[in-house]
């Protein structure tokens, strides 16, 4: 796995995601032995086991696990006083980034789930880790709180040179955050690669899921305040999306669900669909009895489209055909974490 950026570990429940993190943190010793190496350090080998308190790996759990007998400040101090001499984020920076100023004197019991998780993230950062593990950190939060936390995490990924391993079973979360994606199934690694590549492929377990979606990267163009739309420029094409306050020129990810993309042979002039762009069909794959999944090249990037097998036969489309993709909906992801690109 890459030792920089955010790597998402994605898979169904019981696929061994949390177990993997526990082994990396040293909280669990794999029964079958194995190896854990990080950069030039060997944490687990046949004759070697580095205990968790010597690994400098911080871990943010789904349940924040704040120490109940300590207030917020003391929880932060707990990590701060135990770190080595090496740098990392300072107390003031962490409090400022995560907006913890007003919470410092509170006990964990009175905090909301979102506040607790912010404190837990801050505490993890203050142990000046070399690697940050996050195990479904947003699973217990309501939508607003989880969006807010995501924003904090993205901001942190930009500010810190801290590699993160992020376990989630929520592909939308993963789409927003991850640079790199690791797919697990039944405790085994089935695929891994850069996030955008993996989402645009037909041979992964992701593409078989109902919410399969491609992610494309573009830059923000003009805003159209009258209709509340924003332009996103992707590979020379212009997509129009419901507006968010993104600065012109900013790089953004766009998530396009396969089920919201259809294709036509000629460009329709009278469609209600705004975004109709020329693409090339590069791959087809049957998806169950009734449907096929198409991989459509848009410059160097890819879209997915899920259509009925009947439609595919009626249109007579074949790999290499130039088509028009009609995109019914697309979600502009909050902020791109592609600081590394």
């Amino acid at each position: 796995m890459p030792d920089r950026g955010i790597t998402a570990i994605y898979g169904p429940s019981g696929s061994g995601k949390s177990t993997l993190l526990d082994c990396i943190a040293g909280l669990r010793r794999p029964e079958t032995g194995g190896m854990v190496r990080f950069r030039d350090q060997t944490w687990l080998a046949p004759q070697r086991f580095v205990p968790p308190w010597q690994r400098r790996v911080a871990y943010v759990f789904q349940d924040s696990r704040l120490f109940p007998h300590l207030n917020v400040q003391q929880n932060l101090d707990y990590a701060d006083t135990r770190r080595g001499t090496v740098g990392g984020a300072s107390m003031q920076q962490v409090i400022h980034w995560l907006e913890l100023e007003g919470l410092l004197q509170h006990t964990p019991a009175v905090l909301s789930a979102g506040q607790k998780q912010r404190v837990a993230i801050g505490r993890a950062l203050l142990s000046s880790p070399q690697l940050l593990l996050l195990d479904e950190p947003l699973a217990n939060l309501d939508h607003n709180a989880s969006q807010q936390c995501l924003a904090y995490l993205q901001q942190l990924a930009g500010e810190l040179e801290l590699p993160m391993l992020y376990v989630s079973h929520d592909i939308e979360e993963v789409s927003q955050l991850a640079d790199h994606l690791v797919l697990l199934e039944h405790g085994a690694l089935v695929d891994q690669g850069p996030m955008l590549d993996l989402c645009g492929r037909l041979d992964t377990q992701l593409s078989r899921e109902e919410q399969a979606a491609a992610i494309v990267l573009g830059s923000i163009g003009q805003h159209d305040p009258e209709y509340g739309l924003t332009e996103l420029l992707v590979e020379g094409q212009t997509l129009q999306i419901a507006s968010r306050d993104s600065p012109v020129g900013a790089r953004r990810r766009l998530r396009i669900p396969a089920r919201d993309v259809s294709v036509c042979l000629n460009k329709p002039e009278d469609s209600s669909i705004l975004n109709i762009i020329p693409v090339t069909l590069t791959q087809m794959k049957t998806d169950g009895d009734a449907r096929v999944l198409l991989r459509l090249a848009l410059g160097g990037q890819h879209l997915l489209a899920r259509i009925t097998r009947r439609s595919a036969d009626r249109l007579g489309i074949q790999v290499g055909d130039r088509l028009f993709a009609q995109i019914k909906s697309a979600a502009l992801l909050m902020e791109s974490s592609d600081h590394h690109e």
Partner: protein
Amino acid sequence: MSAAELDAIQLTIALATITTALLLILGTPLAWWLSRKNASWPALVEALVAMPLILPPTVLGFYLLLLFAPDTALGVAWEKLTGTQLAFSFSALVIGSVIYSLPFVVQPLQAAFQRVPEDLLKVAATLGASPLDQFRSIVLPLTRRSFVTAASLGFAHTVGEFGVVLMIGGNIPGETRVLSVALYDYVESLQFAEAHRLAGGLVVFSLALLYLLYRRDRRHSWRVQA
């Protein structure tokens, strides 16, 4: 109150204090070990710890008396080391009391330790806390009240001890003549007024201690406690 009674009170308090201190030192690691999942033979050790709860104190006293006799290995070694005899000494009482009151200290501590979430220790470990550090910074503060409970019960139970003392300590004023033995003497010699004074005093002491403990536990039921 007579000088003999004051002696007995003083001796009882000294015995209970030393016993309680030893029990906290020995009982804490034992209770911690028992509270963890990876203990080996935990049921057997737990049974041994609990034995004084159900065994007649005279049984325990009888075997300790045999063990402390001057001709046993322990008795000989003790005499070599200290120059005094172990049987019928204050030291013998301390050893007997530690065994006799062990469950009263170990059980509440074990129950409290078991209630400390393993998850908190895991997160502490990832924040750089070694096991000893985890115990000191997480377990101790969360179970502080149970230490008070354990110490109080151990102390009170030692004060109330009679059978073991009589078997291994005898009735030597200033050395092994504790309150419960003094009370027995008064009753034997039909000095009921004096007996009432000691017995009543012990009743009031025990009731007051237990009342304070239970009242505290009701007020702070949110803490990890036993």
